[in-house]
């Protein structure tokens, strides 16, 4: 299996605060990785660096052959547009754009927009009847599904999800997790930050963080993957 993500001795400091203290690991293409750990352990910082939203203090973070630490502002923009699909806990939809326009926004920054394709992406996440709705008119689960459609629309190499079910009720969480299962089965590479061990067990591997250090890597087994709900 080809290595898609390679992290070597990655460090990030915010002033005197050390968010990442020499983290190293690899992720193969098509893997689903759950990143777990207590608050402040560096999970989100890692996701931000891998997604090109933040730069490391030192070390390497190579995604699909690109060392993110070496990219300038413009290179980071292209990297984010072409290789990464983000899914956030807070959904982060533009409130004055409809569901389909939120998806098209990602297309616009990637290359050209295709409304039909954006509609198909929303149909895929079960929102065919919510295409022209504004985020304010959608439930939390529906908003997150719009965010998933938006993350997938440009066929990214890597999907970075930061607590994607953290703001959802049980029913919506199940719907979203089902989507992730489908994505994984289709061969997408997913790095997901989660606090929920049950969701973590669905991943191929669980990487656990504490105080900015990688403390444990646990491969999941079939039993634990089937144990979700």
């Amino acid at each position: 299996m080809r290595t898609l993500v390679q992290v070597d001795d990655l460090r990030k400091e915010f002033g005197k605060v050390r968010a990442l203290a020499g983290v190293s690991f690899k992720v193969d293409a098509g893997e689903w990785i759950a990143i777990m750990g207590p608050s402040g352990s560096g999970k989100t910082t890692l996701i931000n660096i891998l997604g090109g939203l933040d730069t490391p203090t030192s070390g390497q973070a190579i995604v699909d052959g690109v060392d993110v630490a070496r990219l300038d502002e413009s290179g980071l923009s292209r990297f984010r547009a072409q290789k990464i699909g983000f899914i956030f806990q807070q959904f982060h939809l533009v409130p004055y754009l409809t569901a389909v326009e939120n998806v098209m926004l990602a297309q616009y920054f990637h290359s050209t927009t295709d409304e039909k394709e954006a509609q198909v992406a929303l149909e895929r996440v079960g929102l065919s009847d919510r295409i022209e709705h504004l985020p304010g008119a959608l439930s939390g689960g529906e908003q997150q599904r719009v965010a998933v459609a938006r993350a997938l629309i440009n066929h990214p190499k890597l999907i970075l999800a930061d607590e994607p079910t953290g703001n959802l009720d049980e029913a919506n969480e199940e719907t979203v997790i089902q989507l992730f299962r489908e994505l994984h089965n289709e061969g997408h590479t997913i790095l997901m930050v989660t606090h929920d061990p049950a969701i973590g067990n669905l991943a191929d591997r669980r990487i656990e963080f504490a105080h900015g250090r990688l403390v444990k890597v646990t491969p999941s087994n079939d039993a634990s993957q089937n144990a979700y709900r």
Partner: protein
Amino acid sequence: MFWRLLCKLLRGSGERLAVAILALVSCAMVVSALLNLEFDIERKLTQEFRTLGANLLISPRNGQITSSSPAELMSESEVSAAIQSVKENNVVAAAPFLYIVGSAQNTAAVIAGTNLEALPKLEPAWRIEGQWKPAPAQRTACLVGRNVAQQLKLTVGNALNLTYLRKNRRLNVAGIIDAGGAEDNQVFVGLPEAQYLAGLPGQISFAQLSVSGTTTSISYYAARLASALPAYEVKPIRQITEAEGDLLSRIRLLIVSMIVLISVLTALCVLGTMAALAMERRQDVGLMKALGGSIGQIVTLFMAEVGVLGAAGGFIGAILGWGLSRWMGQRVFGQAISPRWEILPVTTILMVAIALAGALPLRLLGKVKPAIIFREQ
């Protein structure tokens, strides 16, 4: 998608942008009105100043011009030929004058011989009771000053006997002049009548001209006339031409200063609104960047939004400004200022520039770090 996004941005921040567009429309309205005024002020002021009377004088060189002693005289035909030869569209009126001190009804009076037909244009501020006599009737008509009429108890239509040395003429009073100056003590007759009484056929004391234009153009015309009349002195009446030029410069400076001041204030108003908007949009910008939006793409989007605001504000304001300039012209000059189409694009472009200058805080959105924005949440 760009235009779709732009429309959504404009609609999405409608209330806050309403403040900015209100400021831009107000600014454009005043700027458009002032620019209309600026373009038309010279014509209007020149018209106003022409009511003050002649502003160019042709006189004998070193001759003393007094109404009582025509010390040196000029040739009427020479002066007339020179005025005809130096053709100038800006000459509103020209009139020769021959002054003598004779008697009217046996009372001493200053008699001014001139072209009565030219007087209404030369001295538009004079008020008259009766009428200015047309040229063919000049030989039997005269105009008398208000004080003369009062002293001699003359009314329009009365006969008036004028005597100078041993000659006399009997003329009809066609009108009574109220000039508010020395002219109220004079009797105005046709030039041939004065020349007959004085025994000076073809001679004049001086000639007055009313010429419209700037100080420079009047001086230029005077110089051309002077070269055609080398034996005489041609000079602008400085008090009038200089006052005109000076007032024009001051009004222009005032207009430009007001345009600059209003533009700066509007830019500050837009700046305040955009600073608040920039704070509101930090999250959107963070998200756009996370989705791969480049600084150029994002800032272009917001600048286009501001540009549309400026263009709309400038266009609406410029049209309203035409109305305002018409009203101002009516109030100040008694006649509307005609709108000038070129002010529409000038005002619109100016408002776009002001809006973009005021949108400086939006440019700072390019520096927003998505990770920091998301961390704040």
